[in-house]
């Protein structure tokens, strides 16, 4: 014992461990620190997962008169899963959500990037205008659904405005036309979240090394070549993270869509979340909904395995490391590339 106590601090010194003065070793402290969080996580992940798997094998509904733990009375193995996988409406909701995600995030990125480029140069009122552009992001998503519900009424301001511009009466059924409604849903998401893209990309652009940009410009690189050979490659980590995060969030879309269209007309805007909500609350098919939820969780986890890595990596890095302005690895080649490309024009 004597020998060990003298040995420990010496051996651990290089790892920057400290002699324990609190009466507890560090690993115990660490475990105590995260214990409440882990309990919460268990309660939020393990328990619901177990219950959902169990209920998913049954055809239990709350109206059956039995409590949920007695759901085994309605056991039917994989019938719920089979029904979900062979039902057009589940796949419809998945494809619809994927489409909304891709289009909305794409437009958000394009608009956000354009705005960020417009805001890069200092001008009077820039700070105030930036704040102005952030406002939609702050709106409660359910409220933004309501706002566009007002705007998209058949005799609402959007149609009236178009009427005033076009000159004859415009009647567009933004929310009642099944083929149009999903675009209206996307519009809300684009309105609300383009500001986030803008903010992320602006912070990236501002951090780019100024002298390199100036050099490129002085050497005659055009705007497009600066964009292609310098800006986009350097911002790539940030762009990837922004796209992933917006993709994740948009795939979960519920609030604004629910207030805008309620998933309708029919199931024209019933995203994955809206579909699940309808199964649980409106149809009270809890067993079936659990099966669908499990399928969605598996799909999302599979996609998530790829999506998590860049975010995790970035969490460990400082902003400068992320943009690459700290390392020396953005020096020559890209700049030369840009200038060469310019010369060949």
């Amino acid at each position, binding site marked *: 014992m004597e020998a060990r106590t003298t040995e420990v601090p010496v051996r651990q010194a290089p790892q920057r461990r*400290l002699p324990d*003065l*609190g*009466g*507890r070793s560090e690993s115990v*402290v*660490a475990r*105590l*620190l*995260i214990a*409440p*969080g882990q309990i*919460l*996580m268990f309660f*939020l*992940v393990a*328990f619901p997962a177990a219950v*959902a798997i169990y209920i998913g094998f049954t055809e239990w509904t709350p109206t059956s008169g039995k*409590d*949920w733990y007695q759901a085994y009375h309605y056991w039917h193995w994989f019938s719920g899963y089979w029904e979900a996988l062979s039902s057009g409406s589940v796949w419809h909701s998945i494809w619809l959500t994927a489409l909304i995600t891709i289009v909305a995030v794409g437009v958000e990125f394009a*608009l956000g990037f354009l705005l960020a480029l417009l805001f890069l*140069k*200092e001008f009077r009122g820039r700070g105030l205008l930036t*704040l102005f552009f*952030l*406002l*939609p992001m*702050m709106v*409660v998503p*359910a*409220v933004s659904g*309501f706002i*566009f519900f*007002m705007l998209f009424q058949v*005799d609402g301001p959007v149609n*009236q405005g178009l009427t005033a511009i076009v000159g004859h009466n415009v009647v567009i059924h933004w929310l009642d036309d099944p083929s149009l409604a999903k675009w209206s849903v996307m519009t809300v998401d684009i*309105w609300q979240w383009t500001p*986030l893209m803008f903010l992320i990309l602006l*912070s990236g652009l*501002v951090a780019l090394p100024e002298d390199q940009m*100036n050099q490129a*410009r002085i050497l005659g690189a055009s*705007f497009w070549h600066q964009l292609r050979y310098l800006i986009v490659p350097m911002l790539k980590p940030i762009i990837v993270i922004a796209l992933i*995060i917006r993709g994740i969030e948009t795939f*979960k879309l*519920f609030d604004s869509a*629910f*207030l805008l269209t309620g998933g309708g007309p029919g199931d024209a805007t019933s995203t*994955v979340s809206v579909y*699940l909500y309808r199964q*649980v609350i409106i149809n009270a098919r809890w067993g079936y909904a*659990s099966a669908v939820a499990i399928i969605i969780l598996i799909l*999302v*986890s599979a996609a998530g395995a790829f999506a*998590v890595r860049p975010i*995790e990596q*970035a*969490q460990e890095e400082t*902003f400068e490391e*992320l943009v690459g302005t700290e390392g020396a690895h953005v020096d020559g080649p890209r700049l030369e590339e840009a200038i060469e490309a310019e010369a060949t024009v």
Partner: protein
Amino acid sequence: MATAPVAVDAGRAGSADRLSLLGRLRPGGRWLAILLIGGTFGFPLYWTVTMAFKPEDEWNPPGKVFWWPHTWTVSNFTDILGIRGATSVFFTGRSQSALTPVEHSLIAAGFGTLLALIVGIFAAYGIARFRAGGRVLPFQILQLRMFPPIAIIIPLLFMWVYLSLYDTLAGLVILYGAVTFPFVVWLLRSFFQEVPREISEAAIVDGCTHWGAFFKAVLPQVRGGLAATALFVFILNWSDFLIALVMTQDHAQTAPVYLQALQSGASGQEYGKQAALAMILIMPPAIFGLAIQRYLVRGLTFGAIKR
């Protein structure tokens, strides 16, 4: 418009300003683009705010549109909050004014934030300082955010009904705390990582326990970050709709759910009153959000982009 000439000067200044990326774009073009995009993005908010002050006959008259309130009124606010006693006829079968749901929102979001903070502070410090949980816990927390919340809420609904937490504010507070706890971890972890290790080490050498070092030396260093995290998480909880929609009915209904109930109600659309409620809902996050503008990106990107 008066600022346009200034922008021209800034454009000509050339080398002094930042990279002139859109160098080809004349300052006038820049302003035109900004005004166009800004007008489009600003209009929905403009419409809502003005709608909240319009009298009933200007809300949505058939074939006519009031681009601004011709008569200003605050009766929408007094009606929806029940100040003038007009609420009993406002919505059939729902004698309640919006005041109670707004209170519920405040309580649930406030205490939910507190719960998330208390649990999250320790977890964040454990992960940042001791690498507790290794790589697994941060990964789990991150992946959890990818699941559509409704998929997780379905099984919790059974449990909530079973535990009599369904349709109670306490039940809502626990859920809010659990759902926003990951954000506290990410945000605070990034703040803790910015505190030099030497600070806590010095405190321990000076005779503090681990806990003492944490409370006396480290925590004061992240005071600003803690405040930003609290406001950020409050915004998230305040903005929740889905959890409250599924988990409450009458006794713990929050304001966004109330807004939805009004919208799907049988009494027809009462845009002005709903817009007034919408404005009340927008205010706190807008104020808090602008206050912590610097940390919004950090929070919404799970601490990945620290700007």
